[in-house]
């Protein structure tokens, strides 16, 4: 093995080491509120927005807060540092990334699922349909 191969190998191993470290550092688990509360780690929780309890945006602190029910049915207040996400009211599901602090899920990122037609809402609107061949 030549010297340049050894250098290359050393650099590669070094980089992979750093990458592995960064990976552990930045890993976010798919989780639910109970688990997130227990381990206190950054995690991703998906669920639904509790419409009955409403949502508020506070301009002074730039936080948007609401209540979310996770897939296990546990509910928790969520505080998000930002404005109301697009499609928030109608999104069939909401995905939050953040961690639990003092009984509140502090979200740094919220994604709303579009009510996607790819999933086929199943309902067809046949109002005013005309017989084939007349369009």
């Amino acid at each position, binding site marked *: 093995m030549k010297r*340049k191969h050894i250098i*290359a190998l050393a650099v*590669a191993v070094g*980089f992979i080491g*750093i*990458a592995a470290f*960064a*990976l552990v*550092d*930045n*890993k*976010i*688990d*798919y989780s639910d509120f109970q688990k997130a509360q227990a381990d206190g780690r*950054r995690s*991703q929780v*998906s669920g639904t927005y509790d419409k009955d309890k409403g949502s508020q*945006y506070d*301009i002074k602190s*730039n936080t948007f807060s609401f209540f979310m029910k996770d897939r296990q049915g546990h509910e928790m207040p969520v505080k998000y540092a930002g*404005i*109301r996400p*697009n*499609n*928030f*009211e*109608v999104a069939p*599901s909401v*995905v939050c*990334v953040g961690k639990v602090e003092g009984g509140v899920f502090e979200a740094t990122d919220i*994604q709303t*699922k*579009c*009510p*996607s*037609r*790819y*999933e*086929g809402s*199943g*309902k*067809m*609107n*046949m*109002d*005013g*349909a*005309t*017989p*084939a061949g*007349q*369009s």
Partner: protein
Amino acid sequence: MIGSIALALTFTASLTAIVLYTLAARGRVELTIAARRSTQLAILGMFVACGTLLFYIFNYHFEINYVYEHASRKLSKFLLFSTFYASQEGSFMLWGLWTSLIALFLIRYARRQRYEAHVMAIFLTVLVFISLMLILKSPFETIYAANPGQAMKGMVPIDGKGLNPSLENLWIVIHPPMLFLGFSLLAVPFAFALAGLIKRDYQGWVLTSMPWTLGAAMVLGFGVMLGGFWAYETLGWGGFWAWDPVENASLLPWLVTVAASHTMLTQKRTGGLIKTNIALTLLAYALVLYGSFLTRSGVLGDASVHSFADPGYLAFSMLVCALGFFILVPFGIFFWRWREMSGFGQDYKILSRETGLSIASAIIGASALVVFIGTSAPLVQKKVDIGFYNNLHIPIVIVLLLVNGLSLLLKWRQSNWNDLVRKSIVALVATLVFTTVVVLLGVHDPRFVAICGAAFFSLFVNLEIGWKILHGHWGVSFDRTPPSSRDYGRRVWTALSITLLLAILSLVIGSAGDYNLFGPAIAQNWPYFAILFAFLLAAFVIAGYPKFIFDTKFLGAYVAHAGLAVFAIGVIAANGYTKHDIIRLPLNKPTPAFDGKYTLTWHGIDHKDTVNEHTYWIVGIADKSGYIGTARPFTFMTDFNQHQEPIRNPGIVKYAARDLYFTLDAAETEGGAPLDTLGKQQEATVLDGKLKIKFINFDFPQSEKIKMMSQQPFHVKATVVASTDIHPAGDTLILGVTRSTVSEAVKQDDILVPNTSFHIQLGQLMPDMQHPANSRVVLRYFDDQHLPPPATEVITVEAFVKPYINLVWAGILTLVLGFGFAVVRRRREALVAIERAERSYAKLIASGHAPMSPDAPLVEGLPRTPNLLTKKKYTGGA
């Protein structure tokens, strides 16, 4: 019907062609013609299928499920076109269309390069996969088959569901086609690499494939950039790249292809790195399929903003099979031939261009590895934070830019330190000066300073070399010979093309891709372009026809690298130094923003766009020097979310050195008389319990409906019963309002409740046509003696200042241009090389040393370029 038959034709014909080509490759040369015909038939099938789908879309054939699900009569022709690839089936159609189109050109090119049988047999497997996918999940399925029980047989819905609103943007008409062209193009180097592997032509394929590798990198890079641009212009969060798995899925093959293009250059020089190049090229295509598996199989689920469906068991297994096939087969052959490919290549010193290229490739590979890990995390129910990508890319980018600058100063094979130092002086001094300026401008974060420094170094090295190459090879001369009538035509044509190009560019950039603004912009600005046209024409006639000399042949690499450096600086500026503010803007009241740097005034709304029902929120911007622009973020309601809440699009005002970016957050009314919405027979107690209002019914007579239809002002009435403590039985009052469909003007009758100081007005009618009993009204009321504070409307906007974001776009466009120059150069080289090889092959045949075979597996073994001196003699072939 025609569509499905055409798809079946594509499937069978491409399968037949593969069989015929395989036989031809194994010696049955006479089958080549038949294979070619069969390929053309497969291509024809794909064209017919796509034409059929477009026909269905543009003629609103809503009995076709795909058309019903994605098209709509409301969409403009532009957007109607983009419904063609709005969803899975359609994007496979687009992929198939590009693949077929490329196949058409590839037959000729591969034939010329003596690679036809092998390359086409491999390339067509892609078409087999795509057409099979389309047969299993057909875009031609009718609504009756797709929605059994719901769709009445023989009846056609009056309208379709329309496009996802975030796709209603001009960039979406260009972005997916570019991306899929890039994906389709990557199949060509893949086919050449695999064919080279099978033919044991480990060197020749590199030269042959080079223009395609570079071309794919160019197109895919452009496509990825358009995706970022689309996100920036429509999504409203102020950024262009979020390391979303879907974005990463298209970035990955690009990174690997760019890495391959560097090591292929080394192999061309030294004959070494055979295994690296084949592996990278095969990997790039495997990653295309991996990406399409991730984005289409539904595994990303919660990890991405993009919505994906579960494509169904059949389609899912098909995707897995394709992925497995395109990984296992090529890499199986690769490892089978492993030993044969070892030990080639001239030696070179550590301090040489070759080492530089290998390191560059390895660094790009490291970037690809990082992206791959992050993107694959959802497969194991994990996700990585954006920090993972950003933090790891800081060292990657610094080293990449430094190595880029240094390696270009090195000579091929060997170099020495003194030489390197001497050559780098100019660039180093310039780097020092510019980095100091950047630090003085306020960039203090050491990571960002390091990236800027490395970027400046790379930029100046490339500019210096580029300038040296171009020096004496550029300029413009004027042809002053009196023009003939034909020359006049050419001059008019040139002037017209330049004018149109500039007009289109400024139109698209100026209106930020919002095609609704095209009409007004053209109406406003056409005289300027008419003047430009007249000026150019006059200049061509008086000064002569310009002849530009600009030899780009050797510039590709330097232009591309300079673009990368500019891009890196732009990313640091635009992402590292974005300013963010959230501002409440009362109507017509100038309000300071960004610590008083700007003054914003909300001037109200504009409903001009009646086709798409966009509402524009007009925000005037001023700085210390006065008015500087108007932002027009817009909102619209859509069937897509059942009209529940508006979709918000940002408004961007572009300047040379920054963008001002506005997203509307909320609109509300403060103060003013309170409003109440009442259903029929519903009663509200208002004004501290002093007044009760009950809504009885409304009256919208036929005569007024006719006025509404003919867009005249119309009058509607509502009956309410108002009761007070003094008169508990209540008075029946008729409230009226005059409205118009064409303007915002509303005139409410002001009705006083008898013997009180209470006023009631009819705000709005909310009729329910299907269930008249559910109709509602909005009422407004106030007390003369306690007048409410005057109503003010207030909007909340989120605003960003993005400094130097134009460097991001300019950098990538320059990078893409550089790849373009390189494509032209390498294509010429490949053609020259094959001609040379053929001449020596002809000599060989003449001397009776070579077997006669038109699809010669024999170019191998023949030196195709003088550079190609290898350590080991070839064992295979003639």
